C-alpha cells in the first residue's frame, strides 16, 4: 500500500532581505507560517515548488518542508524549521519579534 503523503509547505528566503518566507495559496509569499499553503498531494506539492523556483528575482532556495497540522494551521516537524519560524534562541531577534509569529 502506498504510504500517505505527509503534508508540506513551500518555504524560501526573501532575495532582497534574506528572511524566511512561506508560499501562500494566493501565489504570494508570507512571513508567517500559519499563512502558508498546506500541500497534501505529492504531485501538487512538486508543481507548487516548481512555480516557486521560477520566481528567481523574488526568492532564494525554495524547498518543501514537512509540517504537522495543528490548531493554528501548519506547525514545523523538524526543529530546524522551528528555529526558522521563530529566530535564534540567544537574542529576541527575527520572526519572534513579530507579534503575529511569537515563539511558541
Amino acid at each position, binding site marked *: 500500500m502506498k504510504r500517505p503523503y505527509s503534508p508540506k509547505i513551500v518555504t524560501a*528566503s526573501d*532575495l*532582497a*532581505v*534574506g*528572511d*524566511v518566507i512561506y508560499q501562500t495559496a494566493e501565489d504570494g509569499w508570507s512571513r508567517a507560517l500559519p499563512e502558508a499553503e498546506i500541500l497534501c498531494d505529492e504531485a501538487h506539492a512538486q508543481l507548487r515548488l516548481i512555480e516557486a523556483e521560477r520566481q*528567481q*528575482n523574488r526568492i*532564494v*532556495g525554495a524547498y518543501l518542508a514537512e509540517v504537522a497540522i495543528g490548531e493554528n494551521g501548519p506547525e514545523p*516537524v*523538524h*526543529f*530546524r524549521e522551528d*528555529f*526558522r519560524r521563530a*529566530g*535564534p*534562541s*540567544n*537574542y529576541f*531577534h*527575527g*520572526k519572534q519579534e513579530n507579534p503575529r509569529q511569537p515563539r511558541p
Partner: protein
Amino acid sequence: MYRHTEFDRGFLAARNAQFRAQVERRLNGSLSEDEFKPLRLMNGLYLQLHAYMLRVAIPYGTLSGAQMRALADIADRWDRGYGHFTTRQNIQFNWPRLIDVPDMLDALAEAGLHSVQTSGNTVRNVTSDHFAGAAADEIADPRPVAELIRQWSTDHPEFQFLARKFKIAVTGSARDRAATRINDLGLRIVTRNGEQGFEVSIGGGLGRTPMIGRVLREFLPRADLLPYLEAVLGVYNRLGRRDNKFKARIKITVHEHGLDHVRDLVERRFALTRAAFGGADQDRLERIAADFAPPALRRAPTGAFDRACRSDPVFRAWADTNLSAHRDPGHTIVTVSLKAHGATPGDASSGQMRLLADLAERYGHDELRISHEQNVILPHVHKSDLPALHAALRAHGLATANIGLISDIIACPGMDYCALATARSIPVAQQIATRFDELRLEHEIGPLKIRISGCINACGHHHVAHIGILGLERAGVETYQITLGGDGTETAMLGERTGPGFSAGDILAAIERLVMAYLDLRAERSETFLQTYRRLGPAPFREALYPEARADAA
C-alpha cells in the same frame, strides 16, 4: 600598523563597484542564484537560516580603534547593533539585507577593511598570533609576513578557483597561539644558525576528517616564502580533488598522495617559481615591516598596579587570569573576555566595540587584536594604567576574569544562525558558563578549554579542545558528542570520542560529572585537566560520563 595604500583603495573601490553591479543584476533577475552565489561568496556574503550574513576579515586579527569604531557603526546602521567574532579572526554580521551590503562594503573600505576572500575556494583571511609584536616569547612579529601573504593571495589569478578553501596561519613564537597545526598551511618563524626562516606544515584541518598538520619543510629561508607558497598552491590546485567536496581539502591530497610525493612535487615546482620571483616581494615586505614598527613604549613606575593587586581582590582575580607577559616588563598584554557568564561567546555590542576603541586609543597605542578564541586583546598596556582600564571595562560588562578557564568557551553560531548546523552551540556554552559560575568553581578547576561545534564542519574547534562538544542531529533531536584530550597548541593533538552522545537536556550534567571527576582525580591542585587526562587516559572519565555502564558491568 599597516594602512591601506592607494593601490588597496583603488582595488577595493573597483571590487565593490563590481559587486554593487552584481547585486543589482541579481535583484533585477538578470543573474540567477546559481550564477550569483559564487560571486557573493567571494565577497564574504552568505545566506543563513534567518538572514544574510556578512563575514568581514580582520587581517591577522589586528584592528585600530578607528576600525573597531567603523565596525560598531556598521552594526548599528545596517545590522542589529552587535557583531560576532569568529574562530578565524573574522567578524560576522548576522542580519544584513542584500540591498544594503554594497553600502556596507563601501563603509568597510573607508575604514581599510574588506570581506574579500572570507569565503569561497580561495586563500582565506590569513590568521596569526593575537599576541604578535607584544609576546615575551616571540622570535619575530608574524604580521608583516601575514600582510604580504594577504596582498599576494588577494585576487591571485591562479588561485581563485582552488579545489576547496585554503587556510593559512602564521606564528612568530615557539608557543603556538595561532593554531598553525590545524590549518591547511601553517608557518612558524624559526631560527637556524642565526638566520630567520619558516617551518612549513601542511594538511592540518578539522571538519569531518580531522588531521594535525605535518612538516613539509623544516626550514624555509625567509626570502623564499612567496615562491614556495606559490609552489604549494600550484601543486594543490592540480592535485586537489574536484570530484568529491569531502575529499577536496589539501589534508586529503597529502593523505592520498603521501607527504613525500607532495614534497617532491612542491620542490620541483618551487625551482621554477623561485626563479620567476625577482625580489620585488622582498622590497614590498620591507615596506610592510616598517608599518609594523613597535610602538614607543613609555618608561614609568608600576606601583599603582602593585597597590591595586594588594587592595582590590576583584582587580587581582582579573589580573591573574586576563594578563599575559609582554616583552617589556613595564607593560602587559590584556585579554578582554567576550565570554561574560551566560553571554554569547564572541559577541560584542556596538557600545562595547566603541569602548574598546576608546581604551585602545587611550591606553593601548591604538591597537586591538581579535583572537581565534573569540576574545579581544589590548597588546601594549602599561601596568600603571591597568586599574583605570579595569574600572572602565567593568562598567561595560567587559571585565570577566575567566581567560583560559572553563567559561572561556569557543562556540560556533550553531543552529541559532548557521544554515549548515545540525544542532545549537550557543545555549550549551551559556549553560556551562552559568552553571560553573554559580558553583564558584572555575578558578578552582583552573585551565580548561571547552569548545563547541554545531556540526561536523567543526568551526568551534571541538577536536582540539580539552573537552570538545559536537552537536548533531539524531532521530530528529539535538544530540551532543563529547571528545576529550584535544590540544590546539604546539603540542597539537586530536581529542578522543568518549562514547554515545547526550541530549540537550543531559549535556550540562554530563560535563559537570566530567569536571567533578577531574577534581577528584588530579594528583595535585596544579595538575591541569589535560595533564590529568594524559596521565590517566580516558577510562576514569568515561566512568564518570557513563555511570550506568559501570553499574551494568558490576
